[in-house]
């Protein structure tokens, strides 16, 4: 039996070591998670090997012919053995519990100087806000500095996860949730939503970049400068409400960013935006669809954003697209989207 147990343990260990079970860590938190993972794995391999060895040995050594009518020895129990297999597992799991508790408290600790990033989730897009009201659809993080996320949802529950960074936290409407991530290597990653949030759930992702601290500061400054300009432009057109021919190109640029930030690409194919999702109608066919509905194109597009169930393209269901965009988009963003979608080039 000892031989079988050793063989089983070796096989289980090889399976544990040879397959790269966890993604290569990219955060301090994931380093600690990986430690707990291996701590538990060692204990589990031991238990698995023991159970496998007993089953195999028992079947091997104690199997009898079908016509053997004899009974086994009437052993009813063994108090010492029963105490042992109550106490030893209890000690082992408590050990896992203690290690986990220590790691948990470390992973929740943002340190003295965290970068605070606000996260806004909605069906089916992510938006990140840096200090100084800098908004971005891409999550950019500085290397070796704890980032503390403060997360809010506009509609249903979403969940933020970057697999290489381990940490995960639901984003819940009505409350603010927090999570800490401290990146340990630069590179590109993907943030994915892990809580089923409706149609576009599978494609509700956001790009993640980790930069050296100096590069991160440069990026933030650039965003600040660009954001101030775009904000002024948006304020100008939004306040004026007179989107003549001259401002249409400006609108389309804002429309392009709005298309990304509002998550349109999570459900719709639109070539100029480079999206290929197939949940909702293909927006490259808007001209034909508007003609079918018998409405001017711009009016058709605006109506479809604000009141999506007014006209349903054949082959699609009503009640699927969120009806909240009329409220969540500013008038400037809305007119920008209409301009962008009706094919006016973004400059």
């Amino acid at each position: 039996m000892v031989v079988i147990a050793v063989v089983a343990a070796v096989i289980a260990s090889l399976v544990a070591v040879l397959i790269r079970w966890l993604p290569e860590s990219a955060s301090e938190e994931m380093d600690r998670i990986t430690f707990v993972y291996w701590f538990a794995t060692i204990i589990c391999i031991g238990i698995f090997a023991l159970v496998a060895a007993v089953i195999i040995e028992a079947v091997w050594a104690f199997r009898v012919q079908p016509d053997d009518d004899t009974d086994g020895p009437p052993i009813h129990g063994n108090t010492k053995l029963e105490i042992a297999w109550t106490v030893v597992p209890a000690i082992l799991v408590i050990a896992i519990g203690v290690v986990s508790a220590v790691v948990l408290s470390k992973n929740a600790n943002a340190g003295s100087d965290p970068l605070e990033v606000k996260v806004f989730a909605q069906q089916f897009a992510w938006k990140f806000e840096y200090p100084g009201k800098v908004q971005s659809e891409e999550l950019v993080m500085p290397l070796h500095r704890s980032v503390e996320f403060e997360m809010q949802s506009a509609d249903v529950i979403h969940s933020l996860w970057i697999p290489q960074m381990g940490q995960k936290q639901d984003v819940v409407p009505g409350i603010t949730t927090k999570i800490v991530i401290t990146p340990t290597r630069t590179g590109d990653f993907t943030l994915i939503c892990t809580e089923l949030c409706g149609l576009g759930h599978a494609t509700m992702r956001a790009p993640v970049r980790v930069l050296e601290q100096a590069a991160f500061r440069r990026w933030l400054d650039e965003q600040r400068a660009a954001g101030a300009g775009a904000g002024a432009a948006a304020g100008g057109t939004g306040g004026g409400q007179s989107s003549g021919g001259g401002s249409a190109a400006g609108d389309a640029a804002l429309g392009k960013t709005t298309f990304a930030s509002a998550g349109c690409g999570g459900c719709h194919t639109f070539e100029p935006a480079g999206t290929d999702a197939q949940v909702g109608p293909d927006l490259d066919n808007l001209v034909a669809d508007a003609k079918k509905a018998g409405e001017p194109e711009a009016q058709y597009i605006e109506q479809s954003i604000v009141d999506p169930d007014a006209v349903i393209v054949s082959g699609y269901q009503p009640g699927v697209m969120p009806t909240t965009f009329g409220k969540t988009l500013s008038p400037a963003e809305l007119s920008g989207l209409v301009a962008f979608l009706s094919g006016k080039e973004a400059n």
Partner: protein
Amino acid sequence: MTSTLDQHGQHELQHGHPAPRRRGIFMRPGYLRALWVTPLFFLIGMYIVVALRALAGWDPVYDWEYIVLVAGMVTAPIGFLLGIGTFDYWLYWISGRPTLVDDHANHGAYSWKDYFKVNTDHKVIGIQYLVTTFFFFVVGGFLAMLFRAELAEPGMQFFDTQTFNGLVSAHATLMIFVFIIPAFAGLANFAVPLMLGAPDMAFPRLNALSFWMLPVAGTLFLASFLAPGGAFATGWTSYAPLASEQPFGQVFFNMGVQWAGASSIATALNFLVTIITMRAPGMTFWRMPLLVWANFTTSLLVVIATPFIAGSQFFVMFDRVMHTSFFTPDNGGYVLGYQHIFWFYSHPAVYIMVLPGFGIISEIISVFSRKPIFGYRLMAVSLIGILVLAFSVWAHHMFVAGMADWLRIPMMISTLLIAVPTGIKVFSWLATLWEGKIHLNTPMLFALGFISTFVIGGLSGVYLAAVPIDIHASDTYFIVAHIHYVLFGGSVFTIFAGIYYWFPKMTGRMYDERLGKLHFWSTFIAFNVTFFPMHWVGLDGMPRRVADYAATYGALNMVISVASFVLGASVVIFAFNMITSWARGPIAESNPWRAMTIEWQVSSPPPVFNFDEIPQVVGGPYEYGVPGARHAVLKGGALQEAHV
């Protein structure tokens, strides 16, 4: 050998009641009556809605969502139950018309047709449960094949995402609510009264009603595919507030759960009363077979926990149809409240789905090792330990949900501690095997297969209990792997083990051992190839419940999909074996396994009223190898021929 029809006649004479008037074919309980009473009740429900809307001046008066909800999901099912005849006796009694206390007209099965009628015999109901739940198992498995086809390659091939989410949700819902939970109720229905030495369950008519509520629940779940917008698509967990905003199919889930839950609760009460009050003389608690212990603790779990899921689904539905705000963030609703209430049922539900299996495995391991169960009392006590701990771990499903931080550590500790009583059971089974005389018949193969896979499921549970690992693994395919190791490798393996074990007792015929072994090995191998790689893709970064995924997981998902089709095909072997063996398998002896528990001391199949004389219990149920030991003494009932 008297037939019950004769007994029926004798009882009439003894009691002096006139027999109820023989009614016309459309008035007799049965499908023809259900055929007109069900639509009638639909119309009643419909015009209650229409009348109220007309009175209130609401437009439109014919609002089909409300009509389908009230008439289709509440009154029409009641009409069906009335028509089929589950309420007849009670209605006679209530209205003061003559009833026969000992009317056994609907008791026992004399031809295959009797299995399609309302019947009060626990053995018939047990088989009705098993066949019905097997149907839903096949449908649920078929849905899984459909979405595994979609997942075989990255990108979208066959379905849109709403349909995909609907398939995933319906698969889990059918498997949990109308397969695993009621399949155990079916096995226990058949075995528990016999094991106790009781003539039937305590409340046979309630037992029949419990069964007939199941097809209603299953039909509602499946009918959701016909709803505009498709089937409910929020997973079997159906989290608010998404669930209150989804298309109308979601309501079919909310209401289907009510019918399945009511069925569960009624059955559990029936088991509790039966086990407490109907044990044969000498059957002390410490002489009960572990299957009875397991169903006793399971029934306690059901009775205490199930009302919570009923409440949670009603509240989600009220948020939709009455615009309450239990779980919506506006107007003071509490989004996480849903998860707390849902998991307060659904974690104990995991034990509802596995404790009866523990009981089945204890019976089989002891009989096929020809040894007493090692540490019988600790085995029973560990069931109670799991029962108590089961109510203190629900929030381990919510480690990333945003609940109060302080709850994490205590919930982690109690979750880890559940490994202790579970470990006791596994180690005791292993010790029972040790030095036994092991016979590897199909039930035993499934029992050993169960221990192997369940240990893997239990160990992955230890990973998930550790909060930091859970934070990484939560809502990924690691979870999918874990629940299938627990619910397929755990529950489904034990259901198969139980069906093979009691098949000769249920049908009086023997299944084909070679096909049984083929079924075991194909299931065991395909199961592991399907679900083990899911641990890997999950930890590496593939979330669950996604129709599309990153291209890097394409190869493994192809392997998983192909293996899942093999797993589906292995069920065909099982079905073929069951059907052909029942029809023309070799006649089974009354006790082919040389077991000591009472059900094996009567004929196969047992007499309609189980025992001619109530057995006297004189010792423990697993005294194998003890010279001259007996569990029970039966007079007359033993080896008596079946009535058929």
